[in-house]
């Protein structure tokens, strides 16, 4: 049941939302069918009530409703909520499918971008997008779309049904109907213009409390909780004033709907009443109008606007969906800007790595001046340079997480593309600046999906000088690491991460400031351990700005940032 292939670029937010909606096409068809049933039941109910009343109080030989009439009437009244129950069920199923697809899409885009996601997005934004925001699409796909469909079917069906008995009433309805979207657009524009001006302010004020709760510490420390609270109050109060101004306009569209809905009932009632009193004979196909026809028309009048009003109540779902779509568009555009081939290459067993005039960064924005070096087994290279000179980006590039925009990487005398090559990843060990430990046991953190014996784990821990520390922990290898390291200090976490890298016996170690969080003695011991690794034929490329480390290296590359961002 595959729909048409996903376009590379969505034209608009609405386009994106619509495209994903197609994933649940079968449920959507069911929803349309249910919509038709709802319309049919509504019209039949009005018709049945009309004929029963007519027969009982208006006809020449009055007759009370029969048992069969009552049964049908009850059935119609009960079927109506059952249909809306089914509608909600089908809507939820559709919504589950769509959200799963959107999540799959989001993850796929994120993975293809990998670290290119940053700094356009941050971790909190991405986590919000993947969880809270995509979850918030529930109502849009389960209810709003179904209601929108009903808001089209119902008025048309009612105009057709009403026109079978009279032409003026459907005309009244048909004339007011197009005014509603027109007014909504006009008022919506006004409201949008009014809110656009202070949109950023509104956005800031609306999220202020959340922000202050997350970042409570400095306020508590400064002892100014009272002042912050009164500022929060003032800002919320300002927020109230500016929001109410926008709402005054925004509510006009809802009021307009209410107005037409009320006035159409009033108009139809007065028109019918006067017609019955023989004040005029306008609007009917015949010169006469039965009570049945009158009741029928009056009962249909409020139903005409009901789906539209319900849709209005779900408007927030549409707003939420649009803001999610906005973020998905941003993500999609970022992917479009960063397209790369997924061609798999074989990478030989590393004997020598050479960089020739390499510059990392983006094609349009190279971060550092060209660097060249070559490295053989047993050699240790220091990347030296101030913050912002591109050490981390270069290491990311060497690890195959970025492509190299300029220059060459030569492996064993052969120019090689390392970007996204799994064959390269099995040969290197990269330790990023943050140790990147996960909320799990130490064992899981070391293995990361691979299997090793305890002896192997401890041997790696010994190499990283972390064996004693782990043995001291309650549960040893089964010690649970909690929120961002739990009771592990920065240095301890770093050593666990290093042991993890040692486990697959890489040919090349890429280390980003590994000693920054270590005290001098531990740092010294760590370097000794690296020496051992090199003695066994390993190569090391390490970024550091700790001068004490310098003596240790056999080679040094000074990194320099590009002076002018535009050259």
């Amino acid at each position, binding site marked *: 049941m595959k729909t048409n292939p996903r376009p590379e670029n969505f034209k608009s937010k609405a386009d994106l939302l619509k495209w994903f909606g197609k994933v649940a096409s079968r449920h959507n068809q069911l929803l349309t069918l249910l919509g038709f049933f709802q319309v049919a039941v509504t019209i039949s109910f009005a018709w049945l*009530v009309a004929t029963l009343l007519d027969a009982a*109080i*208006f006809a020449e030989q009055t007759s009370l409703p029969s048992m069969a009439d009552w049964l049908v009437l009850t059935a119609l009244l009960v079927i109506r*909520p059952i249909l809306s129950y089914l509608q909600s069920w089908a809507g*939820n199923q559709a919504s*589950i499918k769509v959200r*799963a697809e959107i*999540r799959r899409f989001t993850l796929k885009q*994120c993975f293809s971008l990998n670290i290119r996601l940053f700094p356009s997005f941050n*971790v909190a934004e991405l986590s*919000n997008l*993947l*969880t*809270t925001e995509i979850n918030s699409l*529930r109502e849009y796909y389960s209810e709003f779309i179904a209601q929108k469909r009903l808001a089209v079917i119902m008025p048309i069906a009612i105009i057709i049904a009403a026109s079978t008995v009279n032409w003026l009433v459907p005309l009244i309805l048909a004339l007011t109907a197009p005014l509603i979207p027109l007014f909504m657009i006009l008022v919506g524009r006004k409201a949008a213009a009014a809110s656009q001006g202070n949109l950023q302010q509104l*956005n*800031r004020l609306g*999220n202020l*409390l959340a922000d202050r*709760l*997350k970042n409570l*510490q*400095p306020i508590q420390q*400064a*002892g100014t*909780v009272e002042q*912050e*609270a*009164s500022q929060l109050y003032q800002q*919320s109060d300002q*927020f109230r004033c500016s929001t109410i101004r926008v709402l005054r306009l925004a*509510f*006009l569209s*809802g*009021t307009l709907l209410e*107005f037409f809905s*009320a006035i159409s*009932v*009033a108009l139809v*009632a007065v028109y019918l*009443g006067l017609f*019955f*009193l023989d004040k005029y004979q306008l609007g009917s196909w015949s010169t006469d109008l039965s*009570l049945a026809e009158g*009741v029928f028309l009056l009962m249909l009048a409020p139903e005409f606007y009901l789906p539209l009003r319900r849709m209005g109540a779900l408007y927030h779902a549409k707003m939420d969906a649009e803001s999610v779509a906005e973020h998905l568009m941003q993500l999609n555009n970022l992917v479009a800007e960063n397209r790369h081939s997924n061609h798999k290459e074989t990478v030989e067993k590393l004997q020598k790595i050479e960089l020739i005039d390499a510059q990392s960064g983006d094609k349009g924005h190279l971060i550092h001046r060209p660097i060249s070096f070559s490295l053989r087994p047993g050699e240790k290279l220091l990347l030296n340079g*101030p913050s912002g000179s591109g050490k981390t980006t270069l290491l990311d590039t060497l690890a195959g997480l970025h492509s190299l925009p300029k220059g060459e990487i030569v492996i064993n005398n052969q120019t090689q593309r390392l970007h996204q090559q799994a064959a390269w*990843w099995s040969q290197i060990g*990269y330790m*990023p600046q943050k140790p990147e430990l*996960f909320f799990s046991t130490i064992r899981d953190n070391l293995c*990361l999906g*691979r299997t090793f014996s305890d002896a192997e784990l401890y041997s790696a821990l010994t190499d990283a000088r972390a064996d004693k*520390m782990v043995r001291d922990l309650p549960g040893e290898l089964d010690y649970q690491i909690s929120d961002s390291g739990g009771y592990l*200090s*920065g*240095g301890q976490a770093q050593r666990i991460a290093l042991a993890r890298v040692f486990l697959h016996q890489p040919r090349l170690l890429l280390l980003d400031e590994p000693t*920054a*969080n270590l*005290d001098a003695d*531990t740092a010294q011991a760590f370097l000794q351990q690296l020496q051992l690794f090199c003695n066994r034929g390993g190569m090391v490329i390490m970024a550091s700005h700790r001068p004490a480390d310098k003596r240790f290296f056999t080679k040094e590359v000074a990194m320099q940032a590009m002076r002018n961002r535009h050259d």
Partner: protein
Amino acid sequence: MINLKQHYLTLLVRERRYALLGTFLAIVTTFSGIALLAVSGWFISAAAAAGLSTITAHTFNFFTPGAMVRGLSISRTAGRYGERITSHEATFRIIAQLRADLFKFVAAQKWNEQQLNRHQVSSRLLQDIHNIESIYQFAVIPALTALAVSIGYLITLILVLPQLSLMVAPILFAVCILIPWLYSQRVLEPENTQQEQQSLMWMESSTLFNGIRTLTLFRQIEPRGATLQKQSEAMDRWEAKTLNRQQQVLLLSQISLAAMAIISFWQGFIAFNAGQLEGAYIFMLLLLTLGSAEVLAGTCPALASLVLGLRALSRLEAHSSSARQIEDQRLFQNPNKQEMAVHVKQLTYVYPQADKTVLRKLNFKQQGPEWIWLKGPSGCGKSTLLQLLNGDLNPTQGRIEFDGFQPHKVQFMPQRIDILRASLRDNLCLHHPHSDEQLWTALEQVELASWAKHLPHGLDTWLGENEWQPSGGESKRIGLARILLQDPNLILLDEPTAGLDTDLSVTLLQRLADQWKDKLVICSSHECFRKMNQNRSIQL
């Protein structure tokens, strides 16, 4: 302990002008809508009956019902607009006060003692606050409107057809009280689970993106993503199931309302047949019932909102009373004494959850100004000691005594610097009055002045989430600038220069040492102290 429920009620009473007006207009609007239909129904059937003969058609007073219909449609429209404006006004007024009060309430508690996940705590809190904010608009107004509608409906029935009111009363009871109660149970039950699951998913995603380098290199990113995808889908299905169960209760409510409509229609015919009721009233009764039923169908969600809001209030209350309300156990003696001193006696700290002793019987004493380095291998308890000195944690055993200053003269710079979503100025001042000159001096001292000058709006540039995000090193220096501005006597610094270049670190630390030469500074750092003029150090 504050009684939050009572506090909410006080707020509602304080804003009674708008709150009552909003409720009143909501009821007027609803009544007008129902009456509009009922009167129209009566009017056309009565007119049709009158129209049968020319004489009655001539004498039929159509002005009154015509005017009523017009009036009702206007009051319904105007009422709706007024209701929405006033109820929002009232809601915003209540929320403004509520936010300030709840913030004070939450900020009065120590959250770092609990070692809980920040995201989980804050999202739980925000959800609770959101539920409390919804009480007026989504619970009080619809519930009172439904109540007014049922009473109005019953009274009309007593006037028109008394025996019907007796038949309908039990259904009204079920629809307004029994079924909504059932519904609220079905909403409450999964509320906690849902909240927890969502937090869990958030944490999973955040772990995924935080560790994206490692996970990619170890080819774990795809499987992790697939697991996340599966868990989210399972959560969606579970959510749909609970929603479905709620919908079943709503279905029950709507079927009861359908029964009410059938009964009133049927009784109308019977009374008409018995000559008790005019024919025109049958249609009126039916439309009245259908109109009321539509309003009463909203009772279930209203009661659920109320129950959720009340539960959120209780939860916040319970938190304040049950959470180990840590009383500051530090001793501040002779605040006016000239010479300041710190005395740590037999200090022991055991992490409650991990049962791991971090500090054992630590003793030290310092009199007069000094810069003290905390030395020791990573994990030896440097941060813990600083948190104990700051009163964030309470010692398991032993005591901490201070001489010569008051609690607010102790300032702590944690490893992680929180940046508020506010202007740079507000981030530095934190509500203390400082002149721009003082701010610039402080920024210069931490080598941030040129950075700040290049910000788009200087001191008025907004920092924080979705705004200008300072880097790790810039955040650290903002943390230092905050402390410089607050001019404390005892300064506790936890890794103040981690992540900064060595040269810059040394420059900064030397400048700070100079600035704070008459203060007591306790600093954990492992690298730079070798380069500094040797001060006192404590080996942990």
